[in-house]
């Protein structure tokens, strides 16, 4: 190996190294030496999220520039600052000089991966619009990022949790006194005998109806009465409408009951009156007993054919009334009533 050959090899080797370093530099840093500086755009955001210097600016997924700088806008902190932006922060973008962006284009921060890898996406505007120039501000749109979505979901879950626990305590009670179900259960248990009696009476009544006895029976088994019935239904509808009005009134009454105002309120919240009511329920049982035996006015009604129309009306009204009650949150009303009663 002579010296000149050695020099040639070393020289070649060194130049190769320099060339490789240059290529690496060009590839990794996008070659800032020869790159045209392009033009500058300002994108204002209230929250730059994880956008940082050096992130890409893309249009339709193609890189068109980089984020040159991110800064906090002073206009927020010092009155009468830069008038061009009302945003808390802004990103200075360096866009390649060959890229044309129109005035109606807008920029949004997009997360390209779950690992927090952001870029700024610029939507293409319409061709007819004038182009943005160096130093102009580009319109921005706020996109929910992954973090805020997660936060919303979290809030939602929190609310749901609260609602469910409220519901649960309404049904099951909060330890002091039983919830709705316990109260209902207690009411049913305590009045089982009375209810049973009432039910057996009702069965007796329906048996009679089935056999065509009395007005109700005739109504069901006599086809001639069909037309009359239809006419009657029309009347029933009207009455039902009136009943609805009544129910709304009742609602008002219930509200008063809740607050312990008015007669009903005092009745419910007064132990003595509660006893009276129990006695009244006893009376109701006596009445239904009598009804079954055809005693008294109601008994006659059931056992007397001519009174079927009136009965029908009343039943329907009762139904509507109950529907109305259902609509307007009877559970709460019943709950409060039951609470005071038992």
């Amino acid at each position: 190996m002579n010296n000149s050959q050695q020099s040639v090899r070393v020289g070649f080797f060194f130049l190769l190294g320099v060339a490789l370093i240059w290529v690496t530099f060009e590839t990794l840093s996008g070659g800032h030496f020869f790159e045209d500086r392009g033009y500058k755009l300002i994108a204002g955001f209230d929250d730059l999220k994880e956008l940082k210097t050096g992130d890409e600016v893309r249009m339709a997924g193609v890189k068109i520039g980089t984020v040159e700088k991110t800064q906090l806008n002073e206009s927020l902190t010092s009155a009468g600052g830069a008038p061009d932006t009302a945003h808390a922060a802004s990103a200075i973008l360096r866009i390649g000089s060959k890229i044309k962006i129109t005035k109606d284009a807008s920029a949004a921060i997009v997360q390209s991966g779950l690992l927090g890898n952001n870029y700024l996406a610029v939507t293409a505007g319409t061709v007819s619009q004038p182009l943005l120039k160096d130093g102009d501000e580009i319109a921005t749109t706020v996109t929910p990022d992954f973090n805020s979505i997660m936060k919303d979901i979290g809030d939602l879950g929190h609310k749901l949790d609260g609602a469910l626990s409220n519901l649960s305590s309404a049904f099951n009670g909060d330890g002091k006194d039983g919830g709705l179900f316990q109260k209902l259960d207690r009411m049913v248990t305590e009045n089982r005998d009375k209810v049973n009696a009432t039910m057996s009476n009702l069965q007796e009544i329906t048996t009679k109806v089935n056999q065509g006895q009395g007005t109700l029976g005739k109504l069901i088994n006599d086809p001639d009465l069909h037309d009359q019935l239809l006419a009657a239904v029309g009347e029933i509808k009207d009455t039902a409408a009136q009943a609805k009005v009544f129910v709304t009134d009742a609602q008002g009454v219930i509200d008063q009951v809740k607050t312990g105002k008015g007669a009903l309120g005092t009745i419910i919240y007064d132990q003595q009156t509660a006893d009276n009511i129990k006695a009244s329920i006893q009376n109701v049982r006596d009445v239904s007993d009598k009804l079954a035996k055809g005693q008294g006015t109601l008994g006659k009604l059931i056992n007397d054919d001519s009174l079927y129309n009136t009965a029908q009306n009343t039943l329907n009204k009762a139904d509507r009334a109950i529907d109305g009650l259902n609509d307007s949150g009877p559970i709460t009303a019943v709950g409060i009533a039951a609470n005071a009663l038992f």
Partner: protein
Amino acid sequence: MKQLRNICDGVGSVLALLVRSVGYAGTLPLQLGRFIEQCYLIGYTTLPIVAILSFFIGSVLALQAGYSMQDFGAKSFIGSLVGLSMARELGPMMVSILLAGRVGSAITAELASMKVYQEIDALETMNIPPARMLVMPRLAAVIVMMPVLTIIANLVGWFGGAFVSSHVKFIDIDSSTYFGALRHYTKFKDVANGLIKAEVFGFVVVLVCCSIGLRTRGGPREIGASVTRAVVTSLIMILVLDYFLTQVLLLISPS
């Protein structure tokens, strides 16, 4: 106590040699022939082993990364892992270790034998300082050759990683994804970081090996002992310096 004295003596003579050699930097144009020769030995002849080793280091990195990342679907980040670790750490580190083993040992052996056979004394009686004729051209050569070796090691390592990523069945990441991830996360700053490291390591390795070679005393047996000491000291210096240099570089240019 004697050990501590030896260490201090060693550090002192290394620093003295550094000062003397740097003082002779001006004579480099007069010693161009020796400089080229050392460049040839340090750079050119070390290239094949650097290329082979860095290719496999890159491959193994990709393989290990692929194996551990396949479970959570982060395989597309293999490129960034290989790119960053080669550029910032393994490239310069490996080139320096090879330099210590291949060039450093040769330097120490040569200088130690010159010392043992009184060639160094002969130089001194001829009024030719060994630091000027033997040490300075080597230091200059390593400064010029280290970045070249390191950038080649980096690139070969990256391609090794790409080769494994695209050809191993359970990884199966095509080259464009690999290099996309590599380019996205590896900045030239990282590469430059590595080049600075390599420069410092290479310089220290050559300086330490020269110093230990010139400090050899006794008979031919001491030549072998000096070579061992030089290589071990170089490796320790590389690893210890690496830690502190990384700290300093992180301080100077935070990501």
